[in-house]
């Protein structure tokens, strides 16, 4: 399928990696959007920043490892993952310990990111 028009999308992820099926659904949408060559970015906000923890081991719960899926985003040209700086601080996560290509944003940075996309999808 050839999709001619280009509209940029921002996917906002606010759920923990395994507490809700929405985290996977959000990533599926991001990957599909990129696969069909539409500009897309992802913003991890609130509890969503917990998806970024590199030490996830989903073997005991028999689910796909969300951190591993996130590591594949750059292969789909989603080269920067945006993260809520306030939420990282609240969860005592040092951005330097995250292995993914993250750019942290404060509230005004997140506002600007929202406004820089044609469509915003909240998960």
């Amino acid at each position: 399928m050839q999709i001619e028009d280009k509209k940029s999308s921002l996917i906002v992820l606010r759920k923990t990696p395994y507490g809700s099926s929405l985290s996977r659904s959000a990533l599926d949408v991001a990957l599909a959007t990129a696969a069909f060559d539409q500009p897309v970015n992802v913003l991890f906000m609130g509890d969503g920043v917990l998806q970024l923890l590199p030490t996830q081991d989903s073997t005991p719960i028999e689910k796909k490892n969300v951190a591993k899926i996130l590591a594949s985003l750059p292969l789909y040209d989603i080269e920067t993952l945006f993260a809520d700086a306030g939420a990282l601080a609240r969860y005592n996560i040092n951005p330097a310990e995250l292995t993914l290509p993250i750019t942290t944003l404060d509230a005004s940075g997140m506002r600007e990111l929202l406004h820089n996309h044609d469509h915003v999808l909240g998960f």
Partner: protein
Amino acid sequence: MIYSVLVLASPNSGLAARSAALFVQAALARGHVIERVFFMDDGCYASSDFRVMPQDEPDAMQLWINLATLHKLELVVCISSAIKRGLLDEAQAKRYETASATTHSAFTVSGLGQLVDATSKSDRVITFGG
């Protein structure tokens, strides 16, 4: 304007799923075009043909069917969300050799490409969740 609507909430929990249908109805009444309604995650349950509603409770699915029939709406259910929830159309039922299809014929089960296609053509993308 051209709208795409993404439904993530189940009709059985909360008010969002019903609001999605009423939003679509109001948008059509205001003369807008609905490019596609895409049901994903628990939103897929809107397509279940085997649900039985008590007599004194409204049938949310009927609202979608009426809108689809009247306005030739495209109601698409995300295949990966749907099949793991036991929602299969005729094609999927045949493919996976299940006893029968479980989705109403007003809904098509398809891939995420349909969502991306719709949003790429839309002026507005409205998401209903929770």
